């Protein structure tokens, strides 16, 4: 059902008529064309599409990493499109955990320090609580024993799990992940995806960009992005139903 618009007061993320045009020189490039989207709390949404389709641009609109040329982005009660850069940074740090394809851990900080960094920036938790919480998150992603290593000493999968722990540092309600498994082998990718499923069960809202069609079938709701528009949407059975549990 293309362009199905979900509406309702329970929407945690709401995009209205969002347009993004990039000035690339001689010919402007339209990355998003009048996109409307609602994501409810606790949903696990997959954005799928070919390279250049606009899925990363779309997730960047939600995280406030990029701004729409036109339209509105509201997350919770916050009009994200109206925030300035500093307000955005603070809001993002507390509301959305961002996971990148290339992990993007800071190379000169240890794993635990990377996880503590968002708490430091957003003044969340007391300085004494931060190491304990960071270690707890690393235990959650099974990296407690790697806590004091530099990212370069970790495998790709471990780095991505560390990045997920960092994304959870301030206990944000939403996780936005751009191709989180794109740089991992299938086994590791599966482990990371499993972690996301557990987080959804713990009532986190996850919006994930992927081009992996297998993984796309494992999310609750997948949206196909093509030429800057949401062209298809599929609702999948919950995990418990699929597994017969």
């Amino acid at each position, binding site marked *: 059902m293309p362009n199905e618009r979900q509406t309702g007061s329970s929407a945690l993320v709401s995009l209205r008529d969002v347009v993004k045009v990039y000035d690339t020189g001689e010919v402007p490039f339209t990355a998003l064309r009048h996109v409307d989207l609602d994501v409810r709390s606790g949903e696990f949404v997959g954005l799928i599409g070919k390279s250049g389709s606009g899925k990363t641009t779309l997730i960047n609109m939600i995280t406030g990493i*990029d701004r729409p040329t036109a339209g509105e982005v509201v997350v919770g009660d916050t009009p994200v499109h109206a925030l300035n850069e500093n307000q955005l*940074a603070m809001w993002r740090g507390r509301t959305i955990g961002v996971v990148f394809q290339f992990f993007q851990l800071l190379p000169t900080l240890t794993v635990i320090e990377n996880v503590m960094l968002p708490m*430091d920036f957003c003044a969340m938790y007391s300085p004494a609580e931060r190491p304990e919480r960071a270690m707890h998150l690393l235990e959650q992603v099974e990296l407690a024993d790697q806590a004091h290593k530099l990212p370069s000493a970790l495998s790709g999968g471990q780095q991505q799990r560390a990045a997920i722990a960092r994304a959870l540092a301030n206990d944000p309600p939403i996780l936005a992940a751009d191709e989180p498994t794109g740089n991992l082998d299938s086994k590791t990718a599966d482990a990371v995806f499993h972690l996301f499923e557990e987080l959804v069960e713990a009532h986190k809202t996850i919006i994930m960009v992927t081009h992996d069609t297998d993984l796309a079938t494992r999310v609750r709701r997948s949206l196909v992005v093509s030429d800057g528009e949401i062209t298809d949407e599929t609702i999948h059975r919950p995990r418990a139903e699929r597994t017969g549990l």
Partner: protein
Amino acid sequence: MSALAPRWRKVVRDLSSHRFRTLLVVLSIAVGVFAITVVMGGRGILLREFEAVYAASAPATVSFTVDAADAHVVRAVERFEGVRFAEGRRTLAVRYTEGEQPETASSAGWDTLQVRAMPEFERSRMDLVTLESTGSFPPAPGELFLERSVNMVADYAVGDVVSVETPAGARVLLRVTGIVHDINAFPATFVATATGYVSMDTLRLLDQPAHFNEIHLIAEGAPTRAEASRLATAIRDDVLMARGVRVLQTSVPEPGSHFLGDIFRAVSLLLLALGVLSLALSGFLVVTTVQAIMAQQVSQVGIMKAIGGRADQVMRMYLVMVAVYGVLAVAVGLPIGAVAGHWFTGYAADLLNFRITSYAPPPYVVALGVAVGLAVPLLAAFVPVRLGTRISVVRALNATGMSGASFGHGLIDRALGLVRGLPRPVALSLRNTFLRKGRLALTLVTLTLASAVIMSVMSVQSSILATVDEVDMWDFDAQMWFAVPQGREAVERIASRVEGVVAVSGMPEYRSVFTRADGTESQPIDVIGVHPESDFVAPRISEGRWLAPGDRAAIVLNADVAKDEPELTVGSSATFNVLGEGREFEVVGVVTAGLMGPVGFAPVQHVDSITGGTGAITRLQLRATSSDPWEQARIARVVERRLEERGVPVAFAQTAADQREQVANQLGILVTFLAIMGAILAAVGVIGLTGTMTINVLESTREIGVMRAIGASHGSIYQIFVTEGVVIALIAWFFGVLASYPMSVALLDMLEGAMGLPLVFDYAWSGMGIWLAAVTAIAVLASLLPAFRASQVSVRDAIAYE
């Protein structure tokens, strides 16, 4: 460390894990701190110490040269109202040489020693000299203390014996028993005359009477020069002349102004100008470096902002990082600068012949060094850090490390694209150079400034040397002076018969003083009688005209008189006191000749007529067949011997080469200082270019990996980066050449103003070539280390580089 918040741990790790980058940035800032500390510290110490040492020497306010005066006259001067102290001395010039010479040996070629004697050295209250060796005041009879600057041109030590020939021709042996410092004595390097000190008892050995021929005094309070001149005139008329003492000359120097003050002011001004330029250079260096760091860190800035870091938080992190660089730079640059400043100051003090009592840099220099190390980097970093941290998250995260995306749009890019036929690596280097235009612009500004300053320094050097030629208005090979006037015809005949002599010219020369409108007197002015058409004179006129054959009471002044006596303008009439009588002269011109003391040139017939019409001369100049200075000196010694044999004792002799060297020595201080400053600026340039090239390499890591992956050899990588460095250096050289001309003119104008001496502008065209070669070599050297690092990049690491 564990107590630090993660963001500050990142700052610490960024500093410690990128050691080479940290070293480079710290060096870039430290070189600025170093330059400021050396230049401004050197200037501060020299000014402070020079003033302190000069003031501590209690220079006389007024000095009279008289025919004869005894202790009663000195006491009468001291009792005169307005006089604090007065002392009598006897000064005479003798010829001397090292070791015990046989009585029969000719004194031709011996050096000149200005001997000063006074009754109570140890109780002297003015023009104080300090003993620097073993021994004690006063020197015993037969003993001699030498002023230490003699050792800049010779090598004398306590215990040495010197042979002295008195003005009357007698030979005396004196033993050197002390080396002293006298800041009020002309350094031997500048006047080719050493200064020695003896007791009054030794005067008898030198066939000298025991009375004084100089009276020095210190006035009460702090009179101006005009007030001191009026006091001198009153003492001359009411005390000295009233007691039958004939005053030959009166000297009233500008209070607090040393005779090397002009040179010193010029040195000080040069140091100040170069200090400001060093400051500007290091500022640009810091901006370039910090901008490069921000470019490298852009993706990390994006990540931090993506996970909740506000721009101001991230900005603070980088500013703290810059502050740490600054602290490290101060810790490195300040002590090294202080050590170098110590050496530099000691060297300068030796050249100017004064002692340094404390090498501690003035507090403001330390403050300036700290400010340059901390404040300048922070100020310089503020804009690049602000721009770097204000970048939007999406732009920061999309920074890939392949930096060529922006190439190809500008006019220069398109022009470079049209350049065909270059080897591929050269074309790549050329385009890489213009890839990061902001960085290139900053690097070029830094290097252009350094190039312009260095080429200007060379031009100032060449102008100084040209000025040495210009101030020399004589055309002789050797000249000599006689203690008492000699008959012209006889002297010229004896000299012209010496083999190797092709022309001779005898001339009268008398000390005179100019009486100003307010009745005060000028410094002594030597009036030299010359034939208006003599080919021994090659005047360069700066105002008015040279003497003409029909002239009588005409006088042409040199630049030194014109500077000191503004009343003496071309066309004015002036009274000069020659041999005790006032004589009217008309000033008809001013010559550029300077650094020879105040001199006026008058028609020889007129000088003869006002000095008794005897045709006597006091100076003889000659030209030789040989242009070799050694041969000219030998011929001059033969002439001296012949004159002595015929009863004409020579008081002082020198060759043109000697005279030129003395003038060059005075201005040579400036040349030396400029050379040192040029070296410091070149070091700033080297470090700046090395920094830029290294950062370019770091930023090009991914391109290097790609090139290596497609088959680039180590040699190709070297070629690319060395060529890039050379291209940057050549562009900087070109703009440096353009900027150096007006900068040279400005520097020379400053020097002229400081020295009050017209300097000949001589742009150093050869400097362009020398600096072109040097800057190319510097570029190659500065690029080698970065190129080596580039060649060591592994393909795997390069492609993985973030």
